[in-house]
């Protein structure tokens, strides 16, 4: 029972990170039918900059805030210079490779600045573990899934209540029609990429105290975030959050009972299987092909 609870709680923590990353993929995909393929590196930027900020003597909260904002700026710039020139092309090879290229460059820059090793971000959230029915977790870990769910609810409120949110939905539905209604589609897409990057960088700041920040931390988390987005259905925000949390829990159990290699095998096989059976994901909307 304790083991079960332990795995579930730590699974929810890492799952919350996947959910935040996947939420970013959802936002980008909705706006542009394109994503930052190196979105994991946005998460890395958040984590690494926060650690560097603390190094520079900033208080933890300020370092975190600034690094999340920097992540957002990165998202906007990336959309403008790496994604937008390739939108509307016949294939997705263009923006896929340019964002991968930017990812490679960012990662190598981070390695140079940060060194090739991992460092934890100091946080009050990991000062002392709490025990719930014998399972030990840090308050930070409990915080992560809560933030993921709040982010999803916040996104929903944004889409329902604000002008920019409604514009995002209009663009997601039909770019041309949105443009004809006077919506500046490019700005909405840029805003979406910025918002997605904010979520990603926030995920990095949240996870850095738990798993340690490093220049290479983003790659695998980013890929898993995309896998989660596909499993949950990239068109559904609640879907990807739910899938993210479930994926995290699944991972902890497989890791605990078998091995880390088996964790990757099972996780990614699951993604392929879901895609074959439900091409639009478990909770996604079907996109009708018109001849």
């Amino acid at each position: 029972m304790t083991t079960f609870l332990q795995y579930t709680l730590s699974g929810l923590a890492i799952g919350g990170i996947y959910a935040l990353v996947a939420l970013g993929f959802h936002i980008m995909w909705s706006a542009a039918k394109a994503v930052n393929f190196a979105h994991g590196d946005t998460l890395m930027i958040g984590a690494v900059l926060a650690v560097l900020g603390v190094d520079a003597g900033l208080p933890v909260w300020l370092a975190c805030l600034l690094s999340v904002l920097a992540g957002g700026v990165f998202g906007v710039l990336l959309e403008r210079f790496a994604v937008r020139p390739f939108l509307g092309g016949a294939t997705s090879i263009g923006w896929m490779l340019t964002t991968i290229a930017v990812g490679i460059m960012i990662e190598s820059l981070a390695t140079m600045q940060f060194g090739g090793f991992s460092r934890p971000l100091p946080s009050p959230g990991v000062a002392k573990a709490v025990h719930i029915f014998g399972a030990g977790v840090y308050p930070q870990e409990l915080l992560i899934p809560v933030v993921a769910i709040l982010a999803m609810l916040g996104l929903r409120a944004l889409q329902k209540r604000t002008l920019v949110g409604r514009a995002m939905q209009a663009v997601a539905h039909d770019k041309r029609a949105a443009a004809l209604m006077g919506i500046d589609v490019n700005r909405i897409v840029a805003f979406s990429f910025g918002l997605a990057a904010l979520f990603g960088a926030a995920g990095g700041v949240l996870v850095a105290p738990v798993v340690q920040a490093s220049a290479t931390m983003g790659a695998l988390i980013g890929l898993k975030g995309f896998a989660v987005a596909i499993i949950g259905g990239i068109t559904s925000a609640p879907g990807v959050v739910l899938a993210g949390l479930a994926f995290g829990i699944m991972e902890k159990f497989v890791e605990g009972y078998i091995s880390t290699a088996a964790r990757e095998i099972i996780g990614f096989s699951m993604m392929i299987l879901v895609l074959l059976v439900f091409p639009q994901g478990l909770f996604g909307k079907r996109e009708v092909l018109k001849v």
Partner: protein
Amino acid sequence: MRHLTLLGFLALAAILAAVPVTASNEYELRLFMLFMIYGVIAVGLNTLVGLTGLVSLGQAGLFALGSYTGAILATRAGFDMISASIAAAVVAGLFGVLLAYPTVRVRGVYLAVVTIAFGIIVENVAIEWQSLTGGTTGITSIPSPNAFGVRLSGYAFYGVLAVTLFLATLGTHNLKTSRYGRAMLAVSQSETAARALGIDATGMRTLAFVVAAVTAGLAGTFYAFLNAYISPDIFTFSDSVRFLLMVILGGAATTFGPVLGAYLLTYLPEFLQQFALWQKFAYGALLLIVMFALPRGILGTAGQFLKRLRPPARGVDTAGAIPAEESLKPNARAQDAELVARDLTVRFGGLTALSKASLRVKGGEVHALIGPNGAGKSTFVNTISGFYRPAEGDCELDGVMLTGKKSHEIARIGLSRTFQNTELFGDMSVLENVIVGCQQRLSYSIVDAVLRTPRMRRQEAEARRVAIGLLAFVGLEDYANDEARFLPFGLQRRLEIARALAARPRLLLLDEPAAGLTTQEIDDLEAMIRRIAALGISVLLIEHHVDLIMAVADTVTVLDYGQVIASDSPAVVQDDPRVIEAYFGTPLDLSEKAEAVA
């Protein structure tokens, strides 16, 4: 261009032969051999990326699969390098089929993620399955290269690699210029049109995946023998990116581009070493520069430049062409094609687009299907040509059931169509578009294609003559070498008709062929439809243009709200009160209908 290709192959052979003689030390030779291994992967991947337009970011996984298969067979079962590499190619090929399966459902970025996931799975299986793969330590003590029990010298191994690279380049080039390569290009440019011409899109994508997988498997075994040691961390995601970059940098869909790309990216790390810490950064920057400055790759851009410098003649000589009257002659069959649709019902969610629509196109007649916007005309066309599945009802052509068959199978039975929004293969020339339509006339096998056998050449030459004849039939022979997307709109419509005819239809389905045409063009179209009908091909014409219908149609069927409301000769239909009502309404009925809708 053809001379250039020949020159390219001679140059490649010369370089491959010269390098071992001029290499100053073993390290240089070894690096060149590594390049040849990468070259084999790249030319295979080019078939997938360049021709079918699919992205694989899991090529390192297939490479690893080949490497491990070869290494395990060599160390455990005593296979020599040749038999091990063949076995590895077969294993990798089977996984290629497996990887191609998801393309039935997903494309683009989803497919890319599937291939990435595949690469990660292979890497982790190699770590986890320790008893077979040695886990993280990998497989050591791979024997030195050997063939048929004889140990190969360094130069002999070099020879094997050089011959493999040369043959792989030649084979994929031949495939590209055959009906298979053309079909792959067609599928990537307009899958809908390709399927309507009888091309099995899934089959073509599977073939491309298998080619890419087999070459990666072969290369993997050679790599294991070259390195004498393999471990899971050699085959990572960044290698997959590198393989893809080789193709894009050199020029996707060009014959020698991938080889050039593989060469550059094998030697680039050597060159970048001087940047020390900035090495990886420079690599990313290069990728970015290529995408912006040379999206078509080095040879792709060079080829375009050459074309602009010395443009080919626009038209084509029609001497020797097989006239349409001959190529479209019905092959000894008893009757003209008769299409019967019975009670077709199609629903989209809650909307019933077609409700028990029945129609009979008598053999050899021109049958017009008309109706106001939203009446269900396009749904009808898409249903009989196999793009939509009806909820109820069925249709058959000369007693052969069409319902339930895939669109490319229906096309092969003898139903060809054009599209309301033209669906040309935009990057292909006008003539090539029509040759794609000839696909079903070509029966040579993939072996014929790769080896360029006389059988293949004879059939290709004939298809070309048929295509030129059809271009002359629609009056496009003077535009034969233009790229299809640059044709004026009216001519694009004619090209679509020529392409549909190339598939040798017994029933031709024209979906709003007059939309957007000028009066003069409509007159030409009218004459063309008559000429087509005179060849014994039944025509189902979906049209708005009343004058055209009255002039050419033998029978007119009217659809309204998904139901057939009239079907008779043009003169009778024209005076049918229900038809008039459907188009114009009557004051009395207008209010009734408004109530019904509400």
